């Protein structure tokens, strides 16, 4: 996963956080990079059937609650016993001009062998001109014996620069590692 401060060409590892029983992980985004990539490793929630969510702070905000976010969200799913499989847009997971927490993968299971892994990208959060586009993709062991591939994309419809991002579960704490890479 690397060590913060290490670079790999134009990819720079800015921060790496590993938590056990933590309620959230916060990262500070500055204007040094045009894109940030967050990598998620072995996320395991303490609460069964919860979701991984995020929100941002603009430089004029402090409480992760006033940047409107709209997303698309779809899933490919397969039940372990092969009872069901398919691909669909997920109306229950997307966001519509939402200033609350935004889901990027859902229905995580909390068994010891269940986990989520994936990545989240956001373009130029320090822009004072454009809405900030982002996208994510996760593979998830769900609580109900489904295995899913979740894809979310959208934008933060706020032209104020963003400087903070928080990842947490919609309920309860979690174990796992999140690394933050910057691209120049």
């Amino acid at each position, binding site marked *: 996963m690397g060590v913060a401060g290490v670079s790999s060409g134009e990819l720079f590892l800015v921060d790496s956080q590993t938590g056990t029983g933590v309620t959230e992980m916060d990262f500070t985004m500055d204007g040094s990079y045009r894109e940030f990539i967050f990598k998620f490793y072995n996320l395991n929630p303490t609460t069964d059937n919860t979701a991984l969510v995020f929100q941002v702070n603009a430089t004029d905000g402090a409480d992760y609650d006033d940047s409107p976010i709209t997303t698309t969200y779809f899933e490919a799913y397969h039940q372990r016993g092969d009872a069901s499989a398919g691909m669909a847009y997920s109306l229950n997971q997307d966001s519509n001009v939402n200033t609350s927490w935004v889901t990027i993968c859902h229905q995580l299971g909390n068994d010891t062998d269940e986990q989520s892994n994936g990545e989240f990208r956001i373009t130029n959060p320090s822009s004072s001109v454009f809405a900030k586009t982002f996208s994510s993709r996760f593979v998830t062991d769900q609580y109900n014996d489904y295995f899913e591939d979740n*894809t979310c994309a959208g934008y933060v419809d706020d032209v104020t620069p963003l400087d903070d991002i928080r990842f947490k579960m919609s309920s309860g704490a979690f174990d796992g590692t999140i690394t933050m890479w910057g691209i120049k």
Partner: protein
Amino acid sequence: MSLVNILTQTGTNVSEIDFTSGLDSTYDIYLFKFFECNPATQSTSFSFQGNATGQTGFNEVIQSTGGSAYHEEGGADTTELRYTTWTHKANLTTFQRMTTSIDNGSENSASGELWLHNVIGTNHKQFRYSSVFMSTSNYCENTWGCGYFNTQGNITEIRFKMDSGNFDGQVTLYGVAKE
């Protein structure tokens, strides 16, 4: 894997951004990242084409496939996951669209990436792309796709442009190193 920045180009009200060097046999994979591309014309698509060594014009034969997910902001809340005939091509020489119709509002733009594999050699030159943007009439949209240049020539030049009109934006070409 590491990224090596080969060239960054920033355009303001330009009709196209061309990369005429940097694509060669140094890397097996090249990555273009496009940032905050805002068109002057309403409802147009961000697109690319290649030019093979020794040829003229950006008009190589492309075969491609792709899809999108969209979500309308506001009251209607319309959503769909779909195959997009707007972005697929069946051995055509026109520009490959990487978005559907981008809204040209001052705060709206398209960002994403285009990966090119094995641009040198007699093989098909494969690519894949993805982008996120606000499309016309307040739709949040995520597009993706893949395809190939159906030529045995080396693809050493790439042009980016809107289907119609000029645009502001930035495109960076990276070489993707194995180490």
